[in-house]
């Protein structure tokens, strides 16, 4: 019997793969997975261009500068003092501005902009009339900050939006899409247990979403790391848990597909318009930090947040309401989090099996 079921599940998966992976109507899901890749590709290109520009500035500079030299420039300095400290600027702009000086007359004020670099940071100095008017130091490469940004994009954009809507599109199609296409009877008229059919369809959807979104996440991680210098890559991967973090991100993506997939499969079966529960889940997930402790546990993002390897610090001055959204005040342990997602998905799938046995084919009411 088990062997029969496995054969049948494989047949269902084979049928679904054609519809999910190779159908034109599924292209938008690839787009959802592709957009973050484009983002990190842009970031990678931007980082390498910035780095190349800094190296050019270093090679063209009069003096070899250190980071503390960049910090030494103050607002009350003159241009001569700046040049004495840092050497002639490798990048310099000069322009004049007319400033009103009373009695309908104007004074021409010479302005200058100096750009220095120590190879990893940039110093921008604005001068007017030979005096420093503004000093800006920009850190170029900051692995810690970039890791936090990556974690933030992953948690708040990729999981909650890209994976969410991707799973909505794929899993909702499994049953509701068949009903709209008037082809569900093809499956119901086969000598296959409806529970086995449902499991087969779910696994097909899970396979498709995992392949698309885990692959996208892997490529994002590769692009993210490629923006580091080679030394920094070694440091990050082998000394700062880079590999562990990467595996965690991939695993969390797969768990998100499992959790959201189960919910949307059930929604597609239970509701004629699954958008209502989808919008409800979106709002529920967004409001999760504000819910009572017991209700918080009925949420995919509650467990996934606990598994994220990088904590996102709350920026100073953030209102308490938004701070609650960002922070993870009561995280569960990783094994409990994984078990939580799996159990919740299992519970929802069990409810789905009860529903699938009772499903009727009535296309005219759709």
């Amino acid at each position, binding site marked *: 019997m088990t062997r029969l079921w496995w054969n049948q599940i494989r047949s269902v998966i084979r049928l679904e793969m054609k519809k999910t992976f190779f159908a034109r109507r599924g292209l*938008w899901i690839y787009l959802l997975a592709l957009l973050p890749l484009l983002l990190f590709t842009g970031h990678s290109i931007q980082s390498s261009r910035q780095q190349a520009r800094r190296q050019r500035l270093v090679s063209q500079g009069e003096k070899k500068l250190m980071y503390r030299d960049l910090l030494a420039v103050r607002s009350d300095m003159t241009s001569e003092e700046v040049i004495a400290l840092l050497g002639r600027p490798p990048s310099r702009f000069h322009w004049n501005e007319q400033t009103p000086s009373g009695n309908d007359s104007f004074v021409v004020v010479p302005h200058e902009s100096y750009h220095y670099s120590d190879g990893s940071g940039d110093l921008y100095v604005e001068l007017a009339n030979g005096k420093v008017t503004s000093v800006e130091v920009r850190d170029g490469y900051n692995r810690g900050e970039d890791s936090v940004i990556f974690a933030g994009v992953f948690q708040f954009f990729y999981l909650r939006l890209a994976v969410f809507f991707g799973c909505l599109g794929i899993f909702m199609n499994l049953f509701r899409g068949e009903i*709209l296409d008037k082809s569900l009877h093809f499956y119901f008229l086969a000598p296959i247990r409806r529970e086995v059919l449902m499991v087969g369809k779910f696994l097909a959807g899970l396979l498709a979403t995992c392949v698309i979104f885990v692959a996208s996440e892997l490529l994002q991680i590769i692009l993210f790391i490629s923006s580091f210098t080679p030394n920094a890559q070694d440091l990050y991967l082998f000394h700062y848990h880079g590999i562990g973090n990467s595996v965690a991100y991939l695993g969390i993506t797969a768990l998100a597909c499992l959790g959201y997939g189960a919910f949307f499969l059930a929604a597609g079966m239970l509701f004629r318009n699954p958008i209502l529960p989808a919008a409800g889940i979106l709002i529920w997930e967004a409001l999760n930090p504000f819910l009572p402790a017991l209700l918080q546990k009925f949420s995919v993002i509650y467990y996934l947040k606990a598994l994220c390897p990088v904590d996102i610090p709350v920026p100073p001055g953030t209102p308490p309401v938004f701070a609650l959204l960002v922070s993870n005040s009561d995280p569960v342990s990783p094994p409990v989090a994984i078990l939580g997602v799996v159990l919740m998905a299992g519970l929802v799938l069990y409810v789905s099996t009860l529903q699938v046995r009772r499903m009727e084919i009535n296309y005219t009411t759709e």
Partner: protein
Amino acid sequence: MAVYRRTYTSYSGPLTPAWSRWLVLFRYSRSSLFRSKLQTGLFVLCFFYPLVCLLTIYLAHNLSFLAKLGAVGGQILTIDNKFFYYFVNVQGVLAFVLTAFMGPGLISPDIANGALPLYFCRPFSRAEYVLGKASVLAILLSQIMWIPGLILFAVQASLAGSAWTWDHLWIAWSLILACWIWIAILSLLAMALSAWVKWRIVAGALLLAVLFFGAGFGQAVNVVMRTQLGHFLDVVYLMSTVWNGLFRVGDKRALSSLEAYLALSAFCAICLALLIRKVRAYEVVR
């Protein structure tokens, strides 16, 4: 002689004017919208906040009177440009929710059931078809946005006096313009998505996705690329910038009003292009 020729005669009575034929679409599309109790309930709910605002205006004028008698200290409620700015924001959100429910059913069913050739074999142009469908949303959303907004303005004007009215007449124009821009964007977006996918449900999901995902992706772009250009992908932020400018709220914004207008125009142009591509009398099936 074939039988039909003996009794059939073509209609020879008066015809309705050609310019008004798009109203047929409006009448029939609108009648189907309120068959759902949920949609009807949602529509009614959209009038709740305007009623709250009406009460606020009334209290604002009576509270100040009471303050003069020494009963309540100070002027608590101020009816100014910010009051109408918040009104437009709240009603704008409700307008989006209403569009998400009612918009997808405008064109998707016609495409799914092969009705477009039937429409276009009449003396009915594509523009008239789109106009007829758009008018459903436009009139519906007007009923919850600028019409109650103008009523609130009129009530405030009548209570506050002519001096206030002349000083703040620009708010009325801003209100109308702000609402119509949002109505146009929502209508075009809903119709474009409705025309692009055959399934009403998927069109509704796409509508949610375009707004939420666009906002999220825009923020991600800003954070990762350390820029403000991501805001161009966030329709809600663009609209909020436009409203900010129209109501002279003065909040600091990453984009200027002109940039927001241009971005929204490009967005509308894309929606129109999608509509032109999909609303045709024929369909190629591969």
